């Protein structure tokens, strides 16, 4: 795959010296080599998004921490104390925050990606480059917020260790990058669909926060998927974010969790499958709609 890719790249680079312009019809293929050639633009757009995100704010990057922390406080009080939600032997704040980490990455990425094309319409109308660069960079730029919030998670774990909980991470933390990749695929996959539609109908902008909220509640963040028996628990994996948040929770807090909380490998496999389908569908839908962006953005 790798060797093939490289030889294709060089071939396409040579071919890009001779550019063919003609109308395309229907579903079109994605020009991967060209996307690769524009990787530096991806980097600079990401850098721009990160640099400007908290400009002219007093708290600056603190917002990346404050938002999830405040959400955690609110849900810990309401669900943990008032509604007495199940947290499988864990202090509710840690239980919740471990899931909130990848979720915030996902939902920020989704929202930014959905609005990315419309927000960059001035560039779309004036310069050519592979349009995929824009939503991809939006999702990637959410990674910085994730890293900051991760520090809070570590602080929480250390803090609660003093109260006698054992938070020595499981060897499964090695899988965190993989889980994050699933979250990235899901975020980008849905973001591609929504951003392409948003160019045509701005309704999407209003629908996305609502969609994200619904998605939040069907994902085991304030609850645990262990409350379901099989096969229903595995079927939760149809929502890729279910595996991601449960995986995060297990890998980080496994030693203190009730046994039987570990997400099954079939659930994760199902999530990988559905995330891949969402992403592949999104990429092709995006490629198909791409040709109209400059005309209607």
């Amino acid at each position, binding site marked *: 795959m790798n060797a093939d890719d490289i030889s294709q790249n060089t071939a396409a680079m040579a071919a890009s*010296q*001779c*550019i*063919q*312009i*003609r*109308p*395309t019809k*229907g*579903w079109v293929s994605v020009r991967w080599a060209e996307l690769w050639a524009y990787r*530096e*633009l991806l*980097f*600079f*757009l990401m*850098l*721009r998004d990160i*640099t*400007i995100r908290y*400009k*002219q704010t007093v708290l600056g990057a603190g917002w990346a921490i404050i938002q999830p922390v405040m959400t955690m406080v609110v849900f810990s009080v309401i669900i943990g104390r008032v509604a007495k939600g199940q947290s499988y032997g864990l202090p509710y704040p840690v239980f919740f925050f471990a899931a909130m980490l990848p979720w915030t990455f996902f939902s920020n990425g989704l929202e930014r990606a959905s609005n990315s094309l419309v927000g*960059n319409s*001035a*560039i*779309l*109308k*004036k*310069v*050519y*480059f592979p349009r995929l660069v824009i939503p991809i960079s939006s999702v990637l730029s959410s990674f910085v917020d994730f890293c900051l919030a991760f520090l809070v998670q570590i602080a929480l774990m250390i803090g609660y260790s003093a109260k006698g909980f054992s938070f020595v991470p499981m060897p499964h933390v090695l899988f965190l990058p993989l889980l994050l990749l699933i979250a990235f695929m899901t975020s980008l996959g849905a973001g591609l669909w929504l951003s392409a*539609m948003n160019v*045509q*109908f701005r309704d999407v902008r209003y629908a996305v926060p609502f969609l994200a909220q619904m998605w939040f509640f069907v994902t085991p963040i304030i609850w645990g998927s262990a409350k379901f028996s099989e096969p229903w628990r595995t079927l939760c994996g149809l929502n890729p974010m279910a595996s991601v948040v449960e995986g995060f929770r297990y890998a980080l807090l496994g030693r203190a969790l009730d046994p039987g909380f570990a997400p099954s490998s079939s659930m994760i496999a199902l999530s990988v499958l559905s995330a891949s389908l969402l992403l592949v569908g999104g990429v092709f*839908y995006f490629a*198909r*709609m791409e*040709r*109209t962006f*400059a*005309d*209607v953005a």
Partner: protein
Amino acid sequence: MGDIAITAHNLGKMYHIGARVDRYRTLRDSIASGVKAPFIKMARLLRGHASAAANLNETIWALRHASLEIRHGEVVGLIGRNGAGKSTLLKVLSRITEPTEGSATLYGRVGSLLEVGTGFHPELTGRENIFLNGAIIGMKRVEIASKFDEIVAFSELDTFIDTPVKHYSSGMYTRLAFAVAAHLETEILLVDEVLAVGDVSFQKKCMGKMSDVASQGRTVIFVSHNMGAIQTLCTRGVLLRGGEIVRDGAVDEIVQDYLSYLNEGAVDAFVNNPERQGAGNVKLTAARVLDDTGASNPHLVSGKPATFEFDYENASRLSQVDVVMTIYNYLGIAATSFNTRVSRTELSGLGETGTFRCHVPVLPLPLGQFRVAVAVHSNTATEDLIPNVLLFDVVSSTFYEGGGTPDPRYCTVMVQAHWDLRR
């Protein structure tokens, strides 16, 4: 690939513009369709039929039957009025938008400068924007880094380079933007009206830079309304009109052709006039100017009466409209304007056809050529607007007793006045 840089064959670009208005017979129909419409649109959108989803059924060809062949090293100017298709052709060639028909092949790396400062972000510093903007227009990071000092020097902004560009003056902003764009080194360069930036001395510098680019043997396609710039930079001109290429040849001939075409504007003021706009419920069909004898005559005498007549068709049977007529001098400056709304003249009872007449008892214009623009407004919309409906010349004057007229550099309209001497 030989020495051909660009070939275009029969390129056309169609835009979907207006929505078809469905007429409903009953309230039930319109409610039912109002409920169904979002679902139908959603289904179309998901299947990838963008324009069908938006219900855009009216179409317009912004470019049609455009065939071109450009050799390596040629510097070509695209000339034409607004809406002639120049920018559309450039957008298609730079792959920003896809053609609707036809094909083109470009041999070499293509760079396009359709607007300087595209993607500049006000919160970023000059330095950050140079890298971002460079990457957007297709430069590699090492390339930008190696030219960084050159770019800063060209923009004359060395002390402000680490200041966010939102604190720049607009002149500084455009200077930086042009500096980045000017250092894009591709074999083929597509440039749209980017010279009109900064003060006169910076514009000179930009022209210098562009002629360097032109003399380096790179292929350049250049759009500008500045005929001087076109003639200085280009060797070949391509004239577009109404979306089609109408002439292609040596730049001086093409510019001459374009200028004389501009001045004969009135010939096709009513048919396929790209400058014409309006809803069209009332449509003008002919226009003429009458001299003091009542004969149609484009050569007028200042100080004598003149009458402007505009025939109209009123297919929608509007009852009342307002008409505005403005006279522009040879510099494009509005000399004077006659507006029924301002003069509180009511033009009502239009009927199906008729003639709007504007009688000027004493024509106050100095010698020279003038252009007439006319617009018909209903209460709700501009029904017809023709900026180039008529041309006429003022050839002599009886306005002042001596028969003289002021130098048109100092006079747009003449006003009655009396000199005397007191001691």
